């Protein structure tokens, strides 16, 4: 079965060039993990490109954690 969460974490790590060993907490907010709005913009664009989906501004405003990003991507993939 496809592990969307691991794929999303890889996109975060690649896009933001996180050091080896740095983990993203699925439940902590991006602000708590030093991920700012510009970082999120980059990651969301990379996610859209990777999954060939379009995340609306409304949906984006509700993505506060990596867990939220996973839920959003799964929903869009299922709808697609």
């Amino acid at each position, binding site marked *: 079965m496809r592990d969307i969460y691991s794929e999303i974490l890889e996109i975060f790590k690649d896009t*933001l*060039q*996180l050091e080896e060993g740095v983990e993203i907490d699925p439940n902590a907010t991006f602000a708590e993990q*030093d991920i*700012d*709005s*510009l970082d999120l*913009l*980059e990651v*969301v*664009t990379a996610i859209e490109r990777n999954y060939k989906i379009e995340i609306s*501004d409304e949906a*984006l405003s509700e993505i506060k954690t990596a867990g939220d990003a996973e839920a959003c991507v799964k929903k869009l993939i299922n709808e697609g």
Partner: protein
Amino acid sequence: MRIAIDAMGGDHAPEEIIKGAVNIVKAIPDLELILAGSEEAFSAYLPRDSERITTVISHSVMAMDESVENLRRKKDSSIYMATEQVAEGNAEAIVSCGSTAAQMAAALLLLGRIKGVKRPAIVLPFPTLKGSKVMLDGGANADSNAANLMDFALLGNAYARFITGNDSPEVVLLSNGGEAHKGNSLVRETHALLAATPLLNFKGNIEGRDIMAGDYDVLVTDGFTGNVVMKVTEGVASGLFHLIKEEITATTGRKIGAALVKPGLKNIAKKFDYSNYGGMPLLGINGISIVCHGCSKAAAVESAVRAAVDYVEQGFIEAVSADIAAYRHTEKILKEESADA
């Protein structure tokens, strides 16, 4: 050599931007320009017989105060389309006088970061008593932590090495006192990081009043402070010149003296004139994206395009990438040695 220009960005766009483009393409024989702008702008300001200038038609503009999140929906904006020219290999650099935040966002989305850079930054030239020095971050990141400031120091160091040819530029940290214990928690923590690394020629803290003395090559601060410092400096310089002008022309006797000091004052004013600096590159971006002052007129655009050509010809991205890779490699070795000890 092809350079892309955001023809719609800036207080005097599109007229002055297009005017600058037309002038500079005449001055540099092998230069080709790609202008991103509206059909209306080109029909109004771009002469039909302009050689070596092609256009891409944009349908929106990222406003100066617009949230960068909007760039997602504005892929038809002039800054996005101009940056896209570099991402697609049609141009080797992009120049814009528009929103710096939007330019940074477009650069991050389309060109990406140099490997090993977590936080790209805006580098600003600073006129001092010992020539032009650089300060960063000039406002790319409003909130920064000590690790981010360490990144800015590394980027500034790489930039100064490239520009000056000095292998070991002097790096200082802006604080409210020279001693290591001075400053807020961010400054104190950053000082500890900078002082501990053998990768930089760190000379300690300097205060705001020491900035103009210029006893350094790279001044490191957070983006919020950097932007405030830049704008206060511009404001003070402009106010001071007005005051001097008022005083030295107040009486007939003084006017005679004013004629004698006028050339000297003009030279000083030139040092504070942003158009002479020709724009600065976004540091840490994996491509050349030149930021110009929002008030830029044609002459500043011309200088910025010249700067872009120089950065491309001299291999700026390759040089900064090599420096950052070397820092990260050494950093890794030091960490491993410290873990083994």
